[in-house]
C-alpha cells in the first residue's frame, strides 16, 4: 500500500513539474509550485519522514508561495516567450539525465533494509539515543544533540539570509509614514476572513508553541514551530495591514530576537564548555547527563525557533514594505 501511494504521488509530482515548466503565466506557476510542495509533504509522510513532511507543508506550501506572490506583485505576472528553440538545453538535460539514470542502476533497491546507508551511524542513533539522550523522537536527538554543530550552522545560514534580505530591501521612513494606520483596501470588505483570522490567530500561536515544546516526543521542533508562528503573524498582517502588526512586532525587536536566537544556541554551547564539557555537549548541564541533554535540547530548539520565526517574519515584512513603496513612490 505504501509503495502504491508512493508511485501515485511521484507521478503527480512529475505532472506538476511539467506543467510548471510549460506555463508562462507566473501566477499559475507559483500556485502550481504550492501544490507541488503539498504533494511533496504527503510523499514525505508516506516515506516515514514525519518531521520533514511537517516542515515542507509549512515552508513550501505556506511561506514560500507567499514570498513568490509578493515578488510577483513587484516584477510583473507574465514571462516573455523565449525567442529561440532551446534545443541545446534539451540536449544537455537529456544526456545528464541518462547518465544519472545509468548511475542509479547499481543502487540498492527502494526500501531495502540491508542498504549501506542503514549500516553505519543510523543503528547507533536508534539503539543508544534512548539511554544517551532519553528523547523518543530520534530526529530531534540527532538534530539538536548528535549533530548540534550542523544545526547551529544551518541556523546561522537562516540568520544570514535574513540579514541579506534586510539589506537588499531597505524601507525608508517616508514609506512607513505614508502607510501609517492604513489597512489593505481590498481586505477591508473581507469581513468573514477578518473575523475568522482573529479567532484563528491564537490557535495558530498555541499550536506553534505545542510543536516547539512537543518536538522531543513527536514530530516537530524549532524549525517547524518557527515557521508556523511566522505564518500566523503573516496571516494577520495580510488582513489587518503592516502598520497594525508593526505595533506588536517592531523591526528592532525582530532584529534583536533573530540575533538572540542564534546567541542562545551558541551560548548553550559555550556554557557547556565553561562547565567542563565540549562545545554543545549537554551532558554537563545537569548532574544527570540525560537531564542535561533534555535541558540542552530544549534551549537549543528554542533558539532555533526564535531565529526562524523572526527571520521569516522579517523577510515577509521586507517584501510587503517594498510593494507599499512601489504603490506610493514608483511609477
Amino acid at each position, binding site marked *: 500500500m505504501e509503495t502504491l501511494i508512493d508511485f501515485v504521488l511521484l507521478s503527480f509530482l512529475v505532472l506538476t513539474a511539467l506543467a510548471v515548466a510549460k506555463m508562462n503565466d507566473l501566477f499559475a506557476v507559483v500556485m502550481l509550485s504550492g501544490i507541488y510542495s503539498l504533494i511533496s509533504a504527503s510523499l514525505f509522510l508516506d516515506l516515514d519522514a514525519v518531521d*520533514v513532511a511537517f516542515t515542507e507543508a509549512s515552508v513550501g506550501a505556506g511561506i514560500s508561495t507567499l514570498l513568490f506572490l509578493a515578488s510577483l506583485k513587484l516584477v510583473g505576472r507574465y514571462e516573455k516567450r523565449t525567442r529561440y528553440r532551446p534545443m541545446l538545453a534539451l540536449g544537455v538535460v537529456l544526456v545528464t539525465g541518462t547518465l544519472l539514470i545509468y548511475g542509479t542502476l547499481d*543502487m540498492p533497491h527502494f*526500501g531495502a533494509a540491508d542498504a549501506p546507508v542503514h549500516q553505519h551511524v543510523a543503528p547507533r542513533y536508534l539503539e543508544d539515543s534512548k539511554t544517551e539522550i532519553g528523547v523518543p523522537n530520534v530526529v530531534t536527538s540527532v538534530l539538536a544533540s548528535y549533530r548540534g554543530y550542523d544545526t547551529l550552522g544551518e541556523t546561522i545560514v537562516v540568520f544570514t539570509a535574513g540579514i541579506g534580505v534586510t539589506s537588499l530591501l531597505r524601507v525608508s521612513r517616508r514609506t512607513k509614514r505614508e502607510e501609517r494606520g492604513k489597512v489593505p483596501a481590498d481586505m477591508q470588505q473581507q469581513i468573514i476572513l477578518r473575523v475568522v483570522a482573529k479567532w484563528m490567530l491564537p490557535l495558530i500561536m498555541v499550536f506553534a508553541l505545542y510543536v516547539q515544546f512537543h518536538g522531543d516526543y513527536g514530530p516537530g521542533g524549532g524549525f517547524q514551530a518557527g515557521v508556523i508562528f511566522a505564518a500566523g503573524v503573516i496571516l494577520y498582517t495580510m488582513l489587518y495591514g503592516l502598520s497594525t502588526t508593526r505595533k506588536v512586532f517592531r523591526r528592532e525587536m525582530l532584529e534583536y530576537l533573530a540575533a538572540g536566537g542564534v546567541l542562545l544556541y551558541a551560548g548553550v554551547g559555550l556554557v557547556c564548555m565553561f562547565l567542563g564539557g565540549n562545545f554543545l555537549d549537554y551532558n554537563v548541564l545537569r548532574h544527570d547527563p540525560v537531564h542535561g541533554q533534555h535541558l540542552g535540547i530544549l534551549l537549543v530548539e528554542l533558539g532555533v525557533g526564535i531565529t526562524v520565526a523572526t527571520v521569516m517574519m522579517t523577510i515577509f515584512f521586507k517584501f510587503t514594505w517594498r510593494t507599499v513603496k512601489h504603490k506610493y513612490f514608483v511609477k
Partner: protein
Amino acid sequence: MNLIGLYNYWIVVVLMMIGFYVVIAHENLIKKLVGLSIFQTSVFFFYISMGKISDATPPILDPRFDLYSNPLPHVLILTAIVVGIATTALGLALVVRIQESYGSIEEYEIQTQDTQDQMESQLEAYGFRKKHVLSIQNLDE
C-alpha cells in the same frame, strides 16, 4: 520487481532534469528560481527515499515497534528545507532589485542593457561623445 525497485530514483532524476531544464532554458528569473526549487526538492526525495525501509515506522521510539526508518536523512533534509526557503527569499530579493534597476527580469534584456552600457563607457574612454555613440540596436541593423 527488479525495475520497480529503482522507480523512486528515476523519478528523482526526471524531476531534477525538469528543474535543470527550467533553470538553463528559461529567461525569466522568477521562473528560474521555481526551477531551482524543483531541482532542490528532487534531492530531498532522493535522500528520503534512501532512508526508507519497507514496513518500518517513523523514527519515534516506542516499545511496540522495533523497525524504524533511517533518521539521519530526515535531519539533513529538514534543515535543508528551511535553509532552502531562506536562500530562495534572498534570491527573490535580488530579483526585485534587478527589476527596479533594469526594468526587466528577462535575462536577455538585462544582458543587452549591460552590453550597451559597457560599449558606451568604452567608446567614451576613446574620446567619443555620448550622443555620438551608437546604440546596440542600431548596430544590429
